[in-house]
C-alpha cells in the first residue's frame, strides 16, 4: 500500500466498511506504520471521549411545561369546533403552564393571536420556560475550583442603562420577557412581542443587538459580594439594579488587580460581546468573577462564574446559568 491511510479510510476500516482487499492493505500498513497506527488509536478512543461528554439532566420545569402543553393539546382535541375551542384551550394551557412553571404563560396566551387548529399547542405554554433550576447550580458545585470568578454576560446589546431603567421603548420584548423565567415573581407587562425573534432568524433588528447602545464600558465591580448557589439570580439582579434602588447595589470600583488577566478572560468568555456586569467577588465563599451577558433571548441573561485562573487560554469555569432578565 502506497502512502499513509487517511482518517476517513481508517474510520471506515474500523467499522468494517472497506472491501476485503482494501481492509487487508490497511491492516498490513498499520502493522508497520507508527503514524497511522497512532491515528487509528485516536479514532478508537473517540467514541469513549464522546461518551464521557457531559450534559445537564432534564430540568424539572421542562417536564412540567411539556405536561401542561400535552394537557392543553388534549383539551383542544376533545373540543368540537376547532377554532373556538382551540382558543379556549390555549388560555387553559397557558394558564396551567403559568401556574406550574412560571408567571408568563397566561400573559403569553393573552397576547398571542389565536390561529385555528394551532392555538392550543405548546408554542404558547413554552414561553413559561423558567430557566435552569437550582439543580444545575448544585451540580455545578461539583466542579467548583479552589477559587472562582463570576461574570454576567449580556447577550446582545442591551446596555446596563436600558436594563436598569427598565426601558421598553422599541424593545418591548425585553421587559415583558424578563418575567418569563421567574416562577414566583414579576408579572410581565402584556406585550404583543412576547415571543422574541429566534436568534438569527434574519431580522436586522435582532442582529443589531450587537451594537451596544448603552455605556461604553460594562459595570466593573469589586463588590465583595459572596454570590451563592441558589441566590445567584437575586444577587445578580441586585448588582444590576440602579444605585438608589430598593436593593443597595454594590459600589462600582475598578478591579483591584489582575486587570490584564481579567481582560483576557472576558475576551475568552464573552468574545466581542460586552458584559453587562463584571464583578470580582466570591462565589460560595471562594474568589470568583461573576460575568453577566445577554443571551439570544431578550428574556434572559447568562451568568458565568469563573475562577481566578480564567485567562486567555483557559476559562476556569465554575458554573454558568441562565437567569431571567430584570425588567
Amino acid at each position, binding site marked *: 500500500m502506497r502512502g499513509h491511510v*487517511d*482518517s*476517513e479510510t*481508517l*474510520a*471506515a476500516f*474500523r*467499522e*468494517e*466498511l472497506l472491501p476485503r482487499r482494501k481492509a487487508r492493505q490497511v491492516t498490513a500498513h498499520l502493522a508497520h506504520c507508527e503514524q497511522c*497506527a*497512532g*491515528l487509528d*488509536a*485516536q*479514532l*478508537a*478512543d*473517540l*467514541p*469513549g*471521549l*464522546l*461518551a*464521557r*461528554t*457531559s*450534559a*445537564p*439532566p432534564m*430540568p424539572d420545569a*421542562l417536564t412540567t*411545561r*411539556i*405536561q401542561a*402543553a*400535552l394537557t392543553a*393539546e*388534549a383539551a383542544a382535541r376533545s373540543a368540537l369546533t376547532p377554532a373556538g375551542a382551540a382558543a379556549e384551550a390555549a388560555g387553559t394551557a397557558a394558564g396551567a403552564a403559568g401556574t406550574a412553571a412560571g408567571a408568563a404563560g397566561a400573559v403569553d396566551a393573552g397576547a398571542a393571536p389565536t390561529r385555528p387548529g394551532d392555538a392550543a399547542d*405548546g408554542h404558547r405554554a*413554552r414561553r413559561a*420556560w423558567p430557566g435552569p433550576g437550582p439543580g444545575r447550580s448544585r*451540580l455545578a458545585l461539583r*466542579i467548583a475550583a479552589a477559587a472562582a470568578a463570576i461574570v454576567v454576560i449580556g447577550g446582545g446589546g442591551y446596555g446596563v442603562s436600558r436594563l436598569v431603567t427598565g426601558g421598553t421603548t422599541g424593545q418591548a420584548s425585553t421587559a415583558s420577557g424578563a418575567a418569563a423565567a421567574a416562577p414566583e415573581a414579576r408579572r410581565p407587562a402584556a406585550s404583543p412581542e412576547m415571543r422574541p425573534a429566534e*436568534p*438569527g432568524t*434574519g431580522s436586522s433588528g435582532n*442582529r443589531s443587538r450587537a451594537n451596544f447602545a448603552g455605556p461604553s464600558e460594562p459595570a466593573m465591580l469589586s463588590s465583595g459580594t459572596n454570590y451563592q448557589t441558589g441566590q445567584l439570580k437575586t444577587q445578580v439582579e441586585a448588582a444590576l439594579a440602579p444605585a438608589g434602588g430598593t436593593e443597595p447595589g454594590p459600589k462600582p470600583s475598578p478591579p483591584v488587580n489582575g486587570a490584564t488577566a481579567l481582560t483576557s478572560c472576558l475576551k475568552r468568555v464573552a*468574545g*466581542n*460581546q460586552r458584559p453587562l456586569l463584571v464583578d470580582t467577588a466570591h462565589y460560595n465563599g471562594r474568589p470568583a468573577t461573576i460575568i453577566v451577558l445577554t*443571551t*439570544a433571548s431578550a428574556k434572559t441573561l*447568562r451568568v458565568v462564574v469563573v475562577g481566578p485562573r480564567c485567562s486567555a*487560554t*483557559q*476559562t476556569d*469555569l465554575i458554573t*454558568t446559568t*441562565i437567569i431571567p432578565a430584570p425588567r
Partner: protein
Amino acid sequence: MDGDADAFGLLFTRHKDRLWAVAVRTLGDAEEAADALQDAMISAFRQASGFRGDSAVTTWLHRIVVNACLDRLRRRAARPAVTGLDERVMDVLAPVPGADASASTETSLDVMAALRTLPPDQRAVLVLVDMLGYPVADAAAVLGISTGTVKSRCARGRARLLPKVAHLYGRGTRAQPPDPPRVPSAAQGTQELGNQAATGRVSPAEGGGDPGL
C-alpha cells in the same frame, strides 16, 4: 381522549430523560433542546391516536425527537454564526450527577463545540451511537436508515471530528482513553486535569485553535 392523554403522559414520563439526553446533545443548547422536545412531544401526541404501548413506541418517540432536532439544526445552519461567547455550547456544561467518568467541563465544552461543526446527519449518529451508546441497529431504526448507513455516517463523522478533538485526549478526569497499543502506558495515572502533554498526542490548539470559543 382523556385515557389517551393519560397514557401518553405516562409514556412521556417514562422516556423523557432519554429523549432529553438525545435532544440536548444533538442541539448542544439546553433552551433549544427544550423547545425541540416539546414540539416533538406535541407532534407525537397528535399522531398517537392508535398507540398501544408496544416496543416500537420507544423507537418512534426517539425518531420524532431526533427529527425535531435535525429540523432545528438545518434551520440554524441557514443562519449566520453567532460571534462571541458560544452560549449554546455553554448550556451543556453542567456535569451529569454521579457520572464520575465524565469528562471535565472544559473538555465537554470543547467536544460539543467540535460536534457542532459536523453536518446534522453525522452529528445525529454520533450522539446516538457514540455519546449515548445506542446499538447501531437501534440508531438505524430511529433514523430510518440502514445499519450500513449508520456505520458510514459514524465513520465519516469521527474522521471529521478527530482533528478537532485530538488535543483533548490528554485532558480530562479519571477516565483516560486507552493509550495506543504500541505506546507504553507509563503516562497513565499521572495526568492532571488540563495537562494535555501526557499522551504525547498534542496539538497546539489550546489558546488558539479551540473551536467555538
